[in-house]
């Protein structure tokens, strides 16, 4: 008699299984390391060339960090689902009755882990290239902002990545679907990061309400994604 991973324990086990598999695929293929991170760094350098003013770069550094993150998210989400659809694994997972909520959470967690690495690198690049700086308190705000923002981006990315996975022209469809929805993350994360960097003399305390927005966004899309992912894949 066959067994199955059912119920909440099944969802958690599935999420761990999928996240571990996605991270193992990344460790083997090194797409994040060899392609996405260099791409994000090139974007940061190109911004520096385009704006060509230390004062301007210092002022817009937070926005550039998150814009580069958004561009990279598109590549990472495409990659995350290309791995699943290349040989029909996503269809097999659904055919095998693997809980869709577990698939969603697992892919979201793996994406979030990779995004956190990316954001850390981009903040480092902002410090080096744009002369951004932050205090210890600003660092706390920066870390919590990065966690909330990457959680929101990973949730939306996984949800819309799943939606676009079976569609024709998914490479062009994904940015159209994703970018408008993550606009609140771009705004919230940029404002919170401005506070963390002290850009234009903005106080750190002004960043925490923006963190609140990011946290609400992350919770909303995580729950919505967990609920909607199964029906969305089956359709």
């Amino acid at each position, binding site marked *: 008699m066959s067994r199955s991973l059912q119920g909440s324990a099944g969802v958690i086990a599935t999420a761990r299984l999928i996240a571990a598999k996605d991270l193992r695929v990344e460790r083997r293929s090194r797409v994040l390391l060899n392609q996405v991170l260099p791409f994000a760094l090139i974007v940061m350098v190109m911004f520096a060339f385009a704006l060509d003013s230390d004062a301007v770069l210092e002022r817009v550094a937070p926005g550039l960090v998150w814009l580069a993150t958004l561009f990279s998210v598109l590549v990472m989400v495409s990659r995350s689902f290309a791995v699943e659809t290349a040989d029909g*694994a996503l269809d097999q997972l659904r055919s095998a009755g693997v809980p869709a909520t577990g698939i969603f959470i697992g892919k979201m967690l793996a994406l979030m882990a990779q995004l956190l690495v990316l954001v850390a690198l981009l903040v480092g690049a902002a410090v080096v290239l744009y002369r951004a700086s932050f205090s210890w308190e600003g660092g706390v705000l920066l870390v919590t902002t990065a966690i909330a923002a990457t959680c929101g981006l990973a949730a939306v990315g996984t949800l819309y990545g799943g939606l676009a996975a079976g569609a024709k022209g998914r490479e062009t469809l994904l940015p159209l679907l994703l970018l408008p929805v993550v606009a609140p993350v771009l705004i919230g994360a940029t404002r919170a990061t401005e506070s963390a960097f002290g850009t234009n003399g903005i106080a750190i305390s002004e960043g925490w309400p923006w963190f609140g927005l990011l946290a609400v966004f992350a919770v909303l899309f995580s729950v919505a994604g967990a609920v909607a992912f199964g029906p969305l894949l089956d359709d």
Partner: protein
Amino acid sequence: MSFIAHEPSSDVVIDLIDAVAVLGSFPALAGATLSVRRGEIVLLQGPNGAGKTTLLRLCAGLIPLERGQGYVLGVDLKNDRELVRHRVGVIGHNNGLYADLTVTENVRFWGRTVGATHGEVDAALQRMGLNGRLADLPVSRLSAGQKRRTALAGLVARRAELWLLDEPHAGLDAAGRDELDQVLKMAASAGATVVVASHELERAGQLATRQVEVVAGQVRELGAS
């Protein structure tokens, strides 16, 4: 009309009675009746668009049974079709493998979707002849036949009781086809039930213990091979 009972101990794995399944507004299965017993290898033949793939998808619980009756592994497809999914293995034109992972990692992944232990995964690899040097190779470096064998090892690790295969010989060379036939015979002798939709009648016919023809959404018995 079938009079076969559907208690869990029943030997009947698939029992469809006047089954109707609709794709969009088109009745892809229009009153199909089919009974398959445990350990059989059944060949579904018929022209393109006749309903073979729809029949497989219905038996896998992937599409709803609109009318008629349908039981797979004792599960009523009308009310509980999702319950049958984790007991059935479906392999279509794709293998559902991750190219960057090794053979062992792929089989372990599919086994762990049902909580299989390392020992069970190792046993599946051994049964499919994938232990040794092959086990540590990334799937991207395998031949088409080896990839198909890896996918089937995933079904063994998942302990799938019913294997539904859509054109399993497609894309394989002669050696790969021979390998596949051996694996399917071995699976059936170990108690799995195999339903194969194929256009390759000569090869699949030699493999099958029974053949049926799907025409215009209905099933016609052709007898034992």
